């Protein structure tokens, strides 16, 4: 017996100019449509993408093997440029991850209805981005086989401990916490959906597997009562967490004395940048995904537009960050700071990256002032891509460019990445895509339960309106 609740077409809702859920949906229809992509055998598109992703993953394996075998010297790093691609990509990925948490957690706290259809998606992205990010701090060290555990505070027979004044140790705690919490948060949200997968699966094998992951969830009211709290609290914790993580990442630089690193504006400006690039990444993936997975009716233009608004906002914050950096560099009166921003970056050998960054992060997002752009799939997709590029350039500027010319001109050196650098970078994109495609294949890409709940609420509202209408 399907639920007989009235159709939840919410088009007549004045507050929702574009519907959050399109068409007349029932719990069941939602259920089938949203889980459909799990049951359906993957199509050509998925396989091609998956093939590409695996190829990328291959690159990663090659890159890492070479690095471990021959040493970090296979990368382009040198003295003075001790950090380059490794840390650039680390920061880039972490940044991307942040949007996920932000969407799922912060928007939840702010009770943004439009979040529901995309949060699962975003959280997954967070998780995978963090996995990619986690790779780098480890493999970029000279002796990973020690770095893997010497940064952990454990009682070794050497009787020596980590050095807790070092931002790198903070990183270890921040990033690992971030990963753990995001994982738990994501999984907690998944449990009810896993249950419905279990219950709607046809093949016994699937039943067993999903059943195991569903932990025997039976939608008990007593459970829901605690569950809602737990979920809310995790969200509550993730919100400051996500802010702290990128703040701490920014400490890696802000705590040092290097011109271009030693900057107090870094924490907020890194967080803004993170959200900026993160949302861009979500859009980059969401636009094609809703197409191929048939999620158009739950991930509507409204969602995309909202995200574009966030991109615009954070983009402006980032621009402000740049402005401040340059202002302080001049205002501080430090010749090293000044040279860093107005000579090295603007006119040095790495200047093209700087100007590309400026274009992508400062100029491009402004297109979202126009509703046409915000709601045009192609434009928003290209913009999002450019923003991703721009944010990568930003990290390159901060890290490599600052390093390659610092205090003493006698040790100024050029930096050029090697094929290993590139293959590892592309490799992580491959890893990310692989995980993502697997996720799309085996787990509901949209939080079914929450969408149903939303439908219910909307239906209620609609109902109410209807009654008023009849007087």
């Amino acid at each position, binding site marked *: 017996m399907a639920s007989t609740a009235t159709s939840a077409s919410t088009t007549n809702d004045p507050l929702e100019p574009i519907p959050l859920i399109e068409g007349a949906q029932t719990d069941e229809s939602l259920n089938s449509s949203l889980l459909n992509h799990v049951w359906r055998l993957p199509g050509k598109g998925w396989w091609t993408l998956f093939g590409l992703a695996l190829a990328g993953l291959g690159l990663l394996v090659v890159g890492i093997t070479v690095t471990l075998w021959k040493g970090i010297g296979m990368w382009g790093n040198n003295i003075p440029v001790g950090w380059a691609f490794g840390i650039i990509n680390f920061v880039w990925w972490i940044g991307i991850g942040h949007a996920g948490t932000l969407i799922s957690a912060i928007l939840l706290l702010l009770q943004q209805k439009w979040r529901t259809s995309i949060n699962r998606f975003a959280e997954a992205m967070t998780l995978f981005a963090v996995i990619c990010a986690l790779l780098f701090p480890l493999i970029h060290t000279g002796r990973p086989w020690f770095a893997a555990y010497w940064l952990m505070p*454990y*009682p*070794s*027979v*050497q*009787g*020596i401990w980590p050095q807790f004044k070092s931002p790198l140790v903070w990183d270890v705690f921040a990033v690992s916490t971030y990963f753990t919490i995001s994982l738990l948060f994501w999984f907690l949200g998944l449990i009810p959906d896993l249950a419905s997968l279990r219950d709607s699966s046809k093949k016994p094998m699937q039943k067993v597997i999903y059943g195991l992951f569903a932990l025997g969830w039976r939608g008990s009211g007593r459970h829901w009562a605690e569950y809602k709290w737990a979920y809310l609290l995790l969200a509550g914790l993730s919100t400051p967490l996500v802010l702290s993580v990128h703040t701490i990442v920014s400490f890696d630089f802000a705590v040092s004395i290097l011109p271009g690193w030693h900057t107090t504006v870094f924490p907020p400006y890194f967080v803004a940048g993170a959200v900026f690039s993160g949302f861009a990444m979500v859009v980059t993936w969401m636009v094609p995904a809703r197409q191929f997975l048939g999620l158009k009716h739950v991930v509507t233009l409204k969602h995309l537009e909202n995200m574009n608004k966030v991109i615009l906002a954070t983009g402006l914050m980032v621009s402000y960050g740049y402005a401040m950096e340059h202002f302080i560099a001049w205002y501080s009166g430090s010749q090293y700071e000044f040279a860093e921003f107005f000579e090295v970056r603007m006119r040095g050998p790495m200047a093209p990256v700087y100007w590309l960054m400026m274009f992508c992060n400062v100029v491009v997002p402004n297109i979202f002032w126009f509703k046409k752009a915000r709601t045009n799939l192609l434009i928003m997709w290209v913009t999002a891509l450019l923003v991703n590029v721009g944010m990568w350039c930003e990290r390159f500027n901060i890290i490599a460019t600052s390093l390659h010319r610092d205090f003493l001109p006698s040790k100024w050196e050029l930096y050029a990445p090697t094929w290993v650098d590139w293959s590892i970078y592309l490799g992580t994109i491959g890893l990310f895509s692989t995980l993502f495609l697997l996720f799309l294949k085996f787990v509901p890409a949209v939080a079914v339960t929450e969408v149903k709940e939303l439908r219910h609420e909307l239906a209620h509202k609609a109902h109410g309106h209807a009654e008023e209408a009849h007087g």
Partner: protein
Amino acid sequence: MFWARTPYARASQTPVEQPLEFDHRHHTRDEGIDCRYCHNTVDKAPFASIPPTQLCLNCHSQVWNKSPLLEPVRQSFIENKPLVWNRVYKVPEFVYFNHSIHVGKGVGCVTCHGRVDQMAAVEKQTPLNMGWCLDCHRHPEKNLRPVSEVTNMTWHAEGDADETARVLAEKNDVHTRTSCTTCHR
């Protein structure tokens, strides 16, 4: 981190077989030979030194000069081929341990090497890991003795041990040194 603390992992407390049946008990206890007769660079060099074959023969050209047990020694001397012993104590390559300073400041042989005079085959008595080194480098007093007594296997402080320790530390001008470069260079 627990494994590393087991004696096995440190290869200690297991007697080490030697190519030649050399018995420290006999030489030190019965014959009363001082450690420094054979390990004669211990007080002036980083290394206590395994005695060259020549040194064995100082005595054994007279005593037991026919003993089959000593055949390898004579062989070594005649063929100019070193005796190959199995090592008992070894610190990692990046640790620069110096016997002369420890002996010079009154750290007894027995403190690290144990009652060698009671060992048929010598075995490693102490963990030799950094934590263990640090213990003593932080509080050396408790392991001090008059420099004259360093080779004494049975020396014990008379009266108030802590007081003697303090006095000795004073007298031998012993410092606590825990700077990394004390041992790592």
